[in-house]
């Protein structure tokens, strides 16, 4: 019922970044909360060695499976290692996994989508049918199968996740490019003899990144989740690697009697993914004002 949107003067709707900070924060409360949480996680990850009271891999057998207490806020695991410290260090792995999976998927999928959407025709058909094949696997299934084939491990898990995610980016990018491709400024550039390459990079790409960025920010979280799931079923990170999913997996043995061994990593995954999701949601509203209008 806001039929005027399409008639809107561009100068009013397209300048979200000029807004006053205060107004920005109140209007994007969840986004700001997400950013705050995420910065905490990020800072924790970066400065892990300086802020953790214990070494994450220091084994103190006499202190095994201690419940949370003043010395060990999150308790200790079955080697007497401080769970809090491990969770903090685990942030490094998880963030690295999230980031690299996302980037890798974008790096593979983005250009495919760009080329596919820009040229269309049989190029598009071939590239998209190939992506379809990857998309035919239910989520998580392909990464599982790939890591199973390559053998467990952090790198393999990341690669597997990226390989199974790139088609999403190819699709998203393609969709955005197809919309942009119809814009007159592309035709205008063509009539000026600008080469395909330059058009793709300078004109199409900057204008079709938004959905990819939004999706990427979301996937950052899903990648953390998925990597944790892989670790959980024994296909991801292995000891002595410190990763939240692995921490949860190894605590399964004593989870029912020593619940805290899985709780802290669980909460860590949850909060991080939540924060990333909030950021993604916020980004979508901010970068794509049409979407955020009434919601």
């Amino acid at each position, binding site marked *: 019922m806001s039929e005027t949107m399409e008639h809107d003067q561009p100068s009013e709707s397209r300048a979200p970044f000029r807004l006053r900070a205060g107004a920005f924060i109140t209007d994007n409360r969840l986004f700001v909360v997400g950013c705050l949480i995420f910065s905490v996680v990020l800072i924790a990850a970066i400065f892990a060695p300086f802020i953790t009271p214990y070494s994450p891999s220091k084994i103190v057998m006499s202190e095994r499976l201690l419940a949370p207490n003043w010395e060990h806020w999150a308790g200790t695991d079955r080697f007497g290692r401080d769970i809090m410290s491990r969770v903090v260090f685990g942030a490094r792995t998880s963030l690295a996994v999230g980031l690299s999976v996302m980037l890798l998927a974008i790096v593979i999928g983005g250009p495919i989508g760009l080329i596919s959407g820009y040229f269309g025709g049989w190029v598009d058909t071939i590239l998209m049918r190939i992506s379809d094949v990857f998309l035919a696997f239910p989520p998580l299934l392909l990464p599982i199968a790939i890591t199973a084939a390559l053998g467990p491990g952090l790198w393999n898990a990341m690669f597997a996740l990226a390989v199974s995610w790139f088609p999403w980016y190819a699709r998203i990018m393609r969709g955005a490019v197809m919309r942009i491709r119809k814009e007159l400024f592309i*035709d*205008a*550039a*063509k*009539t*000026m003899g*600008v080469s395909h390459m330059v058009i793709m990079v300078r004109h199409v790409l900057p*204008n079709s990144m938004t959905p990819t960025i939004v999706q990427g920010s979301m996937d950052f979280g899903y990648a953390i989740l998925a990597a944790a799931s892989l670790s959980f079923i024994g296909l991801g990170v292995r000891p002595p690697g410190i990763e939240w999913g692995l921490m949860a997996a190894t605590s399964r043995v004593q989870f029912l009697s020593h619940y805290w061994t899985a709780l802290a990593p669980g909460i860590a995954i949850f909060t991080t993914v939540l924060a990333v999701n909030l950021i993604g949601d916020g980004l979508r509203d901010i970068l794509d004002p049409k979407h955020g209008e009434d919601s």
Partner: protein
Amino acid sequence: MTVPGPPLLKVCNLTKHYPTRRGLVRAVDGLSFEIRRGETLAIVGESGCGKSTMAMTLLGLTNATSGSLSIEGSVPQPISSAVRTQMHGNIAAVFQNPQSSLNPKMRVEALVAEPLKTALGLRSIELRNRTIELLADVGMGEQHLRAFPHKLSGGQLQRVAIARALALKPQLLVLDEPTSALDVSIQAQTLMLLKRLQSDFGLSYLFISHDLGAVDFIADRVIVMYLGKQVESGNVADVFSKPKHPYTQALIDAIPTINPEKRGHFALLTGEIPSPLNRPVGCSFSPRCRHRTDVCCSTEPGVTISGDDRSFACFNPIQDTFVKSSNHETI
């Protein structure tokens, strides 16, 4: 205004068919015309009649199905996708919607500089000077250089688009409905600017529009298209004052005008434009035409040339005397 000599561009039998899932769309079907130096040729017709498609083939944005082209009296050669090269880069375009014809992520400076960089290879100071010069030509100042498109009004945007089009010093500017997305008050600014530029630089325009008022104002000659075909062409004043083809007549009559003399006159054409997918047999206009005779429904009318640049495709052309009320329902 028109410069004598061979026409700048002569297009013969331009045809563009889009094969689609539902059949062949004959968007442009055997269109021939010529544009002389310094002249404005207008193409008018209803939505979907193939105006933009025709422009796109000339601009090399889509491949013509067939047709040939001769430049300044040269030997006609088939229109290829390299039509821009054929034209030696002498063609540029301004599109309907200025908002979407400028990359929103680029500043005005970069937008105008782009063709200078890619085609002319200008750099640094030279580039900047030429950019400023071009903007000045369209009446914009240096203060706009750093602006992003969304900061500019529709009229300003269209000026930037025109400046860009002028960057390569083209002889022919294709203007695809350059004013129809603009507000009335801005439209006038743009039309005036175009007119000025034409006389300053001796440009030729291919002016596409369905606004007969604008066409009447800016064009020298006009082609009326219906369903991918030319139904009538000639000098603007002649065509608009003494239309030969019933469709031209209907088009003129359908335009609501504020001209106090014509107020109240309001002609009505029945039926809708058929889809170019299943073009009627015979004359495409026959189902909507009140002059149609049996022959119209079976045979396609050929082009009749009636001296002084006039031509039309109709079996029953309207006679010179203005006989409106007998043809059309008037309110």
